[in-house]
């Protein structure tokens, strides 16, 4: 990682208008996400926070009719809608963790190794072993699963499966991790583990997390963006958002007037 990289924001969104078919779901978004910080997106259901997140690794391409109407998203300084962007490379550098943990119906080892195996550059077995171990350690899962790497990933608990998904994303060597409500399907204890993990991971990774849970946002994030009905209402340091929101709507939302 060199310094010139760090001076540019990790993700930069400029005047983004995003639509599904004719329906505009994001309007005029401007946002800069800094390196090695945790940024939380909060907002009521359907406000567009997930859409925004999916626009960062162009997973939104999968939805028929989804398109950027105007503006652009720059990741690591590169406009990702340009034709010379290879989406597979983009998605390797911008990892993603989903709301519902979704390990593949394969062994634990194969789950972590998947990203490497589909890479165009082949790697040797020992190198692969090293990457799998490092990733699992980084996701704080190694000690729990090291003896049963060849068993099915479905044998793990929900929290473990979600951490496996994080390990899977880390194995690709990403710069940025997108997390789409990673704890929504987990019990409080597992949630805590994940939150700890996020704090540990931000040393190395830029993390963007979508959450419904405002306590979670205060616990893990450095900055928070509040979206409402497709608009970015407020984006600032988490402390400021939760203690001295500038906008009335933000205040109403965080005090639980609507959700």
């Amino acid at each position: 990682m060199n310094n010139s990289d760090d001076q540019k924001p990790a993700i930069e969104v400029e005047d983004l208008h995003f639509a599904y078919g004719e329906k505009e779901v994001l309007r005029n978004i401007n946002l800069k996400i800094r390196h090695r910080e945790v940024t939380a997106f909060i907002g009521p259901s359907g406000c567009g926070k997930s859409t925004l997140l999916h626009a960062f690794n162009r997973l939104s391409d999968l939805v028929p009719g989804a398109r950027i109407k105007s503006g652009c998203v720059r990741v690591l300084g590169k406009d990702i809608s340009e034709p010379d962007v290879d989406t597979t490379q983009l998605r390797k550098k911008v990892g993603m963790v989903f709301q519902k943990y979704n390990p593949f119906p394969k062994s634990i080892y194969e789950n972590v190794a998947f990203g490497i195996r589909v890479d165009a550059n082949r790697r040797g077995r020992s190198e692969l072993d090293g990457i799998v171990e490092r990733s699992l350690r980084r996701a704080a899962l190694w000690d729990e699963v090291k003896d049963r790497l060849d068993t099915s990933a479905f044998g793990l608990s929900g929290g473990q499966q979600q951490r496996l998904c994080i390990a899977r994303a880390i194995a690709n060597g990403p710069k940025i991790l997108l997390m789409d409500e990673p704890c929504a399907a987990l019990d409080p204890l597992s949630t805590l583990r994940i939150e700890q993990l996020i704090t540990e991971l931000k040393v190395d990774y830029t993390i963007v997390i979508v959450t419904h849970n405002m306590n979670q946002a205060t616990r893990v994030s450095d900055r928070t963006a509040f979206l409402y009905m497709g608009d970015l209402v407020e984006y600032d340091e988490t402390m400021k958002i939760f203690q001295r929101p500038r906008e009335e709507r933000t205040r109403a939302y965080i005090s639980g007037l609507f959700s």
Partner: protein
Amino acid sequence: MDSGKQRRFAKRGKGFLGLTRADAIRYFFGGNASLAIFILLLICVFLFKEAAGFLPGHHAGLTKWRRSGQEFVDILNVAVDGHTRLGSALNIGYFAELNATSKAEQQQLFSYRAVLQRVKGTVRGPAGRLKKLLKEFTEAGEKLAEAEQDLAGADLDPARQASLRAALPGYRAVIAEVEPRIAMLEERIAEGVAEALAGDEVWEGQNLVADDREAVAEAICDQFEAAEQKHPWVAGLEDFVREKKAERTPQLAGFKEAVTAFRNAIRPVKDLISPLREAASELKQQAIAAESAPKRKAALLAGAEATNDLAERARKLAAAEAVVVAAPPYDEVAEGFYAETAAFEAVVADLRKEIDAAVEALPATGELADPSARENLERFRNSLADYRESLDRAVARAKDWRHDEPYPQVKSFLVFLIGKEWITNSSWHDFYGLMPLFTGSLLISMIALVVSVPFALGAAIYVNQMASRREQNLIKPAIEFIQAIPSVVLGFFGIMVLGTLLRDVSQVSWLAWVPGFPLQERLNILNAGLLLAFMAVPTIFTLCEDALNNVPQAYASGALALGATRMQTILRIIVPTALSGIIAAVLLGFGRIIGETMVVLLVAGGKIQIPDFSKGIGVVGEAAHTMTGIIAQETGEVDRGSLHWRALFMVGLVLFSISLAVNWGAQIILRRFQRHGT
């Protein structure tokens, strides 16, 4: 609370047999639902009922086969059968060598004759009529000439003269009427011949270069114009061939002698067997007669009882008296068979010696000029050891054979299940062996699966994962249409179009390397397999597509988010996840194919024989018969309740079991592997 209020919530309408109306409705619907189980049981019951007598009957038949000595004859006959096969290889080899120097010419002659036959076939109608007219014409001409001659003669009584004179115009009229018609027919035939020769149909299967083809066509045209004399081209060829053969015969005298010696060596064995064969056959007839004797006797006696006509009664009583009820003389005849065992051993020993001598005298393979001759001789030499072994076995089995040893029940069942012969309506013995039918069914199904799975799976992947909405809306109904095509229509298509197409394609010279090409038959395993593959595509496609559709979207987005390409996601995540469903789809497709009737009945070729697997993949060019086909073909034609009829129901039972097993297997696979992804 008071009882009135309680009653208000009680069920109303106690009706028939203490059932409430609601209950009755419920049971009515439940009854209909349980009908499915009931029908399944009924199918079992009725298949078993009709097949019930098969095993005892089959066992009884085999017992008769053994006791009457037919088994003994069949054991001895192994020596003859093997010898015949070897002898024919030798013979083919000899003639190939003999013809080696005039091969091309013979091929031309052969093509000429074959095409001539076909052309004759196309103008058979007019030719027949022409023949008739010519006969009329010559007859009339002769009569006319005769009458004129008589009239020209001197002394003729006036009455005769007058009648002759009166007849003359009639003859002339016939001639006048027939003559133009003859001319017309001749013209028509010439036209027909030209037309047939111009088309491709009569040339089918003849490998002729353009020049030869022209020569053949010309010779055929001439043949039709002047039937009496041979076309010089043909005559020339024939002379050439004759000459070459004459030239070659003395050179190959040694070869020929060896072949003849080999072929004659079997005579004593045949001579030994043929009286035994007759004895066994007669004994079996007696056994069959004896079996029904008590019944016939009783019927005659009853008939005699019933009639009032005294003469009739006496006749019937006498007939009843004449019916032999006694058991046939098994032991007596068997003694005769035992006595021949030593003689058999002796003739086989002689046979060996003579064969050895003949093999000594054969030319070495390397000396032969013709590749086909070399090949046949090689085959002969390779199978010789097997034949010698089979002779040993035959002698040993003949010695061990005991006519009164009971035939094991299990063995009679095995003879059905893995027997290699299905021979019915035979004057010797009917064999009901499932193997020829089972292998036919299996082979055809396998071909169908091998062909259809890539197509169906590929299409399912394409439609489910890659196609646009519009394409999906086009392809899915189209495939449903395929499912709607009736199987008899596909069978018809196989006969009319696909068979000819396949054969033509197989005769293209640059495809000769494909195993099994060129195809000899139009109706064969490959043809049936391809049609069934087409039939299986909708089933497999639909089920595969379902299976792919059931893969949770989360897997796909997970894989894509990890930087996998679309194709990697499909091949490494979606397809493996859906694999259990896909396997189940293939299994169910297999069940559908193996149970399919009309296509195989129409297209498989109907040859009841285990296909010759020694050809490798080329086996697909053979004709075969199947389990479903045999039921469809024979059930309508056999006597109800006969052993043959029961055998057919047994085949049905086997099919039924296979279909249940396949279904059950598919269920298990689906259940075992479908725990993931809720």
